[in-house]
């Protein structure tokens, strides 16, 4: 094979990588060996080798084949649906540039007032917000789901730890003085909070951020993002101990308050950043949104399906679900209902906190009325 004939074989893995497929150098090497093994008698053998080595999932098979045709057969193709208009959501992470806190100012939007009003209308007493949040934080550490880690640790109760017992025995001339036991360590699951800050959610986002702040301060590993026309990571801002400062910092990062809802696209942006998507793996995902989507539901359904395959549990808090007569009627909401584990009321702070830790646990953790 002349070096020139080798060109497409080297170009193909590069092109795959550029399109977001998995193509590690070791795979590129295997690909060359595989082509050699199969003959190759025709381009079909090359394609078969490519499928086996790079293994495109069934959902991206077509794009993979198109790319293959372009590199090896010189066929042109269009990448579908990659419009780069201003409207396409982008991921935004402020990194570690800590910004100056904006001065405390009155919120002219009246968001605060309307939220309080609703809170008052629904519950039978005035809620002490600070007390509620600290009760929530106290109840949360007990309510966060745990998973069994693979790591065993010495414990007072558990199964016998023969390895330690044997070492102990060897040290003591073959005598067992005390049975050494161990058990699997428990770890908290990661918690991912995704908050819809679009116009239709106006009034609920402040409470959602307060809840997210409490979660991030309490859970061992937690992340929070806001979604609207773009995706913003607010975890770092919400790590501050002082709640009002943290909220002000987070609000400053979010540039698309009350924008249009592009939940599906913002979610797919979230999933397309490996660092972010990796966090959702095995995590409890809390989505605060009313599920009202501008445009068709397809993007939202596709993103939720993907999120479903990563997450351990998905809890959806919707302000609309607070109404007992609420039935998920929109196409998007109906379609994603089987993908989520719990749909709960998320109209105000108390409802959200109650839905996440259980109302009884919340009341046990402190008095806030």
């Amino acid at each position, binding site marked *: 094979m002349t070096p020139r004939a080798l060109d497409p074989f080297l170009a193909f893995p590069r092109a795959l990588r550029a399109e977001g497929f998995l193509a590690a150098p070791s795979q590129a*090497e295997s690909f060359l*060996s595989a082509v*050699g093994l199969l003959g190759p008698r025709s381009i079909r053998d090359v394609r078969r080798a490519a499928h086996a080595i790079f293994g495109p999932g069934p959902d991206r098979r077509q794009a993979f084949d198109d790319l293959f045709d372009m590199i090896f057969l010189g066929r042109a193709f269009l990448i579908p649906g990659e419009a780069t208009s201003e409207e396409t959501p982008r991921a935004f992470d402020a990194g570690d540039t800590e910004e100056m806190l904006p001065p405390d100012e009155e919120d002219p939007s009246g968001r605060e007032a309307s939220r309080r009003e609703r809170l008052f209308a629904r519950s039978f007493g005035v809620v002490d917000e600070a007390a509620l949040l600290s009760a929530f934080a106290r109840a949360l550490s007990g309510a966060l789901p745990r998973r*069994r880690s693979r790591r065993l640790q010495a414990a007072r109760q558990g199964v016998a730890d023969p390895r330690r017992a044997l070492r102990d025995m060897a040290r003591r001339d*073959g005598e067992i003085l005390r049975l050494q036991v161990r058990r699997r360590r428990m770890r908290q699951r990661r918690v991912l909070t995704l908050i819809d800050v679009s116009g239709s959610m106006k009034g609920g986002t402040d409470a959602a951020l307060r809840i997210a702040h409490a979660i991030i301060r309490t859970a061992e590993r937690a992340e929070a993002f806001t979604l609207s026309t773009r995706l913003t990571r607010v975890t770092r801002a919400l790590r501050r101990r002082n709640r009002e400062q943290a909220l002000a910092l987070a609000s400053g990062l979010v540039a698309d308050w009350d924008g249009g809802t592009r939940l599906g696209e913002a979610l797919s942006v979230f999933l397309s950043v490996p660092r972010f998507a990796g966090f959702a793996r095995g995590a409890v995902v809390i989505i605060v949104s009313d599920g009202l989507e501008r445009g068709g539901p397809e993007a939202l359904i596709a993103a939720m399906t993907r999120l479903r395959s*990563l997450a351990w549990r998905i809890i959806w808090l919707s302000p609309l679900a607070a109404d007992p007569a609420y039935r998920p009627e929109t196409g998007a909401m109906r379609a994603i209902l089987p993908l989520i584990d719990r749909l709960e009321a998320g109209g105000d702070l108390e409802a959200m906190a109650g839905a996440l830790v259980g109302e009884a646990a919340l009341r046990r953790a402190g008095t806030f009325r």
Partner: protein
Amino acid sequence: MAVRRSIAGIDSPEALAEALRAAQYLADEGLATAAYLALALGKPLLLEGAPGVGKTEAAKALAAVLGRELVRLQAYEGLDASAAMYEWNFPRQMLAIRQMGDAYVNLYADDFLIARPMLLALQRPRERLLLIDEIDRSDHEFEAFLLEFLSDFSLSIPERGTIRAAEPPVVVLTSNRTRELHEALRRRCVYHWIGYPDPQLEAQIVMMRASAVARDTAHRVVAAVGKLRAEPLAKPPGVAETVEWAEAATLLNAQGAPWPAAFARAIGVVLKDQDDLMFIAPRLDRILEGRA
């Protein structure tokens, strides 16, 4: 990278497909290619597909073709090293300490080592085929822990050092894709997505697996299952269900039930979900009528 063109006399995907057919497994071209490349390149074979499309069967057939013993490791959440790799036989070690008194005893000799599937595969790579079944059921930590094993085919036992396979063992992993596998794992494997077979192939599979089923019955079952898969079901029937349906309907027919009724009465072997059954019930007649 060690490349072996021929393993157990198999030197091309076509030869492998032929051998699999002799072992009662009908593989399509993609599967035969991926399996052949996995053998030749000495890499694990990762098979993904919906439940019941014959992933585990493929591994069994491959073991039969290569004349190897199948060592199966069923993955589950919480699977740990002592169940997957090895374990020390502690009661025997302790007994040995007591019995030997003042004499020297090597507590970490082979006598005290209990090999589990992964170590079994490493010890006799030429005689065994390791099947790690339903890897998507295991937790991420186990997946991470598999990486060392799958890339170097070695295991570290602290008391003994690293155990390496003399040659790469044949390893097959299967996944139902209930969750996404980590990319680092997928990268190390030769991959094949097993889809539902085309009607022609599926009818052949039915006839091969269920010998009592008539040709006509096989085609009718395959056509009906094809229509069922097009419906929005929670659990679409797999190939295993097709075979069972054909067998069940043949049995009922032999006892005197007329054809469409025999299929309808045996629906319980195909659809195993109450919601699916309720959904399909009014449409069942339309699905059963006509041939492929």
